[in-house]
């Protein structure tokens, strides 16, 4: 069942339907009452990122949890079971037993810009990534691994054979959906990893019946678009955000350089792009120079754009009304409101390229770009987060992967994990 089939909240008590495996672990004397563990997500938390994994594990085992939006940094409430306490202790996650104090907490939530959202079903997570290891890290994969949230890697063959329907949540690795290998083809000519990437993509395109890699990537982009329209949750970072929209808008236009498909790009490509097919952006202009590793003027920072490159600042999260806008509120839960920016091949999104109706979740104040955006499509939703690695602001090809055990409080990584838990939420009817 897709998480779009949300129903009205009927109760806020936790742990009424407890998974048998965990139920067995309860101390016998405690079965009559269902006490809770609060996982604070403010500065008292000792490992913010693993807290998401613990909450995920609870709901994965059939337990009910609650996300206390805006309460102490977006805390979680899980059943007070020995097994969960043990996991918390092993992972260094701070928890606080709450019994009678919960009444006061709920009172505070009721009276403030806060809300309690039940979390019911652990989403099945897929990460779209090539089978080989690219010479750059992927923030989402690392966050999931560190938090202990299981996921499945899928790639073009799985997408093209309809496997997306088996997953609730899809993350796009740093794919270039224009099929131009992130425009590294000329710059990194001769590198073995690039040769392997080109070979693998070309072979896959041929095997799936496409003449060129750009054609294959456009078809993959359309499948992902359909997946979201049918109720899937899409999360994309870095290049994938911008290029999936370019691939969708260019369904009948050649926007790939000669090196990618053997033909020059259409000189009138800009005019022929059909932005109605895209998720988030409109009116973008293609970067036609094959030697510039930039795709369009959607990205505000243009990290590889020479003189166009903009310096990094800091982005600020919006403060939404938890009771009226629970979805964006979930996506911005954090213990920090202002977060240092970080580069990616696509770092940010120019405001003048956003479609009307796109929800801005974070922006750099005073700058012409935004960082973190969200929107609906059909029965599903998508979220785009610019940049590559929140804890490695200038990640270079070949740099070692970030060790998240050194960044357990990373506010940037929290934003990624908010997205993973968001599909677990049981939606309430809007009060307006």
């Amino acid at each position, binding site marked *: 069942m897709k998480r779009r089939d949300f129903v009205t909240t009927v109760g806020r008590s936790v742990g009424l339907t407890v998974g048998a495996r965990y139920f067995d672990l309860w101390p016998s004397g405690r079965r009559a009452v269902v006490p809770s563990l609060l996982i604070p997500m403010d500065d008292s938390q000792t490992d913010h990122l693993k807290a998401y994994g613990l909450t995920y594990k609870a709901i994965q085992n059939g337990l009910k949890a609650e996300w206390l939006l805006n309460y102490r940094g977006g805390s979680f409430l899980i059943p007070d079971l020995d097994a969960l306490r043990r996991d918390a202790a*092993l992972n260094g996650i701070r928890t606080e037993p709450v019994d009678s104090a919960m009444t006061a907490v709920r009172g505070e939530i009721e009276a403030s810009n806060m809300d309690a959202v039940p979390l019911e079903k652990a989403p099945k997570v897929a990460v779209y990534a090539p089978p080989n290891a690219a010479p750059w890290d992927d923030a989402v994969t690392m966050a999931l691994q560190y938090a202990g949230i299981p996921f499945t890697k899928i790639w073009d063959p799985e997408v093209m054979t309809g496997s997306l329907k088996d997953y609730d949540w899809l993350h796009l690795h740093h794919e270039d959906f224009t099929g131009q290998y992130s425009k590294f083809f000329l710059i990194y000519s001769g590198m073995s990893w690039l040769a392997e990437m080109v070979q693998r993509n070309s072979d896959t395109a041929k095997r799936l019946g496409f003449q060129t890699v750009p054609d294959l990537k456009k078809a993959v982009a359309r499948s992902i678009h359909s997946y979201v329209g049918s109720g899937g949750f899409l999360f994309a970072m870095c290049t994938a955000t911008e290029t999936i929209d370019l691939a969708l808008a260019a369904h009948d236009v050649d926007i790939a350089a000669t090196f990618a498909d053997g033909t020059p790009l259409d*000189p009138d490509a800009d005019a022929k792009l059909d932005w109605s097919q895209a998720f988030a952006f409109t009116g973008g202009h293609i970067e*036609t*120079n094959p030697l510039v590793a930039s795709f369009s003027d959607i990205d505000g920072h243009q990290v590889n754009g020479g*003189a166009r490159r903009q310096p990094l600042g800091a982005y600020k999260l919006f403060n939404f009304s938890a009771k009226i806008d629970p979805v964006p509120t979930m996506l911005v839960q954090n213990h920090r409101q202002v977060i240092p920016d970080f580069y990616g091949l696509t770092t940010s999104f120019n405001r003048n390229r956003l479609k009307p109706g796109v929800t801005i979740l974070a922006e750099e104040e005073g700058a012409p770009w935004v960082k973190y955006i969200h929107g609906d499509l059909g029965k599903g939703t998508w979220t785009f987060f610019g940049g590559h690695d929140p804890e490695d602001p200038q990640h270079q090809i070949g740099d*070692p992967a970030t060790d*998240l055990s050194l960044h357990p409080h990373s506010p940037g990584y929290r934003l990624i994990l908010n997205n993973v838990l968001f599909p677990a939420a049981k939606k309430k009817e809007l009060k307006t």
Partner: protein
Amino acid sequence: MSRSINWAAVAALVLLASADPARVARGQAVGPGFELERSGRYADAASVYLTTIRSDPTNIPALLGLERTLFVLSRTSELLPLVQHARTRQPDSPALRSLELRVYAALNEPDSLEAIALRWAVSAPQSEAPYREWGLALADRRMWDEARRAFLVGRRTLGGDGTLALELAELEQRVGNWEASATEWGRAVTRLPDVEANAASQLADAPAAMHDRVARALTAPVASVRARRLASEVLLTWGQPHEAWAAMEPTLATADTEAPTALRRFADLAGALTTPEGHRVRGLALARWADMMPGSTGGRARAEAVRELLDGGDKVAARRVLEAHSDSNGIAQAALIHLLIADNQLDIAEERLSAPATAITADDRATLRLTLARARVGRGELDRAAAALGDDSSVAAIAQRGWIELYRGKLKNAMEAFRLAGPYALDRAAATDRTAMMALLQRIQQESSPDLGAALLTLARGDSVAAIAALRRSAARLPEQGGRLEVLLIAGQVAAQKGGDQELTAIALFDEVVRTGGEGAAPPAAELEWSRLLVRIGRSAEAIPHLEHLILTYPNSAFVPEARRVLERAKGAIPKS
């Protein structure tokens, strides 16, 4: 980078133009186009450049601007008549000739390109430029075979083994033919010594699988001295100091004016290596360089060479250097005493150190006394070790006296000496060792324990297996919560470090400490060491329950953060670092 988008070249042309008023006007005319181009408005930029060309057909900045912008706009064909017209007006301009070749290449007309290049070559019979530009234009279009042929036609026509070698080297590298690239770089440095730094930098990027082939190409029997020196530099960059010196040394057989520079560069590059072999070859290079340098420069280099050779474990070479140069230099004398101590000739070292008329500085003398005392301890000569320290009242000497007292079994005296030495004596590793030993001594109530002292001395002397047995025997005589677990932990750590058969001993010792439990840091420390050992020998799955037990049983232990980290690594949740 493609030369067609070479902004630096454009800027240089604009700057050059500023010397001449007419050229200033040319530069100003294309300035707006340049700005439009930088902001990505290529069609508008092209219009500006075309307007300029109409009034000034040979304006090279404008023509180059058109080359860039029309390429992006897929309108390169419009450029050809303009360039041909300009070239007709200025037939001797290499810039226009090159541009014409690139335009033909961009239009994918290789036959015309060749004809134009050969026509240019006829008009400039001694010049490499026509062949170079012909080949580069093709290489920019990724037409590798055709580009190679163009360069080779040039080499054949002009003669000379190194003709166009640099261009061929870069071409072969772009194609991934590293061996051929190395051969060409060898020819290039033979002809032009100034390109050596570039050659070394380029070849350093060769994939590991190609290293042997590249090295062989540069050290082939026919290779020049410069090519061999290039090989030595590249091998150093790859972290192969032994092979690097093997390539360098034969080039020093006959004196040449470039040898001192080459040796100094070799020594500097080897300085980046921290392996013993890296130190050794640096020492060898410095010793040879010192022989070429006059006076004090040579003396200082020789002393440095000796230190490097000692760090590299080559005592024979170090001694040979010192014996060949009977300097009265204090640095060299100190180096020789270091060498004698390292060579276990302690009596001679002591005699030289005690000689009244040496030029050794007070600091060096103190360091040598400490080194000598440690060496005496290593031979079990505790009284002579104490005597070597003399009346030195430095914290380093006090710390060393603490160890000597410990090995004598006088635990209380050792503890007092360590306290007096404080936490900052000597380097960080030594301070950590002392602190760990103080933690152990705190748990032991007895003022003396000759058994424990003897066991620790055995360990200090490097006999690990005997030390493990001695430590176990000593532990058996201590109360369970009065130091026994801590001593067993040390025995376990030694066994784990020893590896091989001793790993089972280590596991048994850690098991005993963990099962006994109780207060103190030993049980969680033993469980962490146990887990690390299991991870190291590829039994990560067995380490996980131990780490979980540690974290849950000793939640307030200082070892818990590290245990969590090892746990993450054992589970594969964080990358290896």
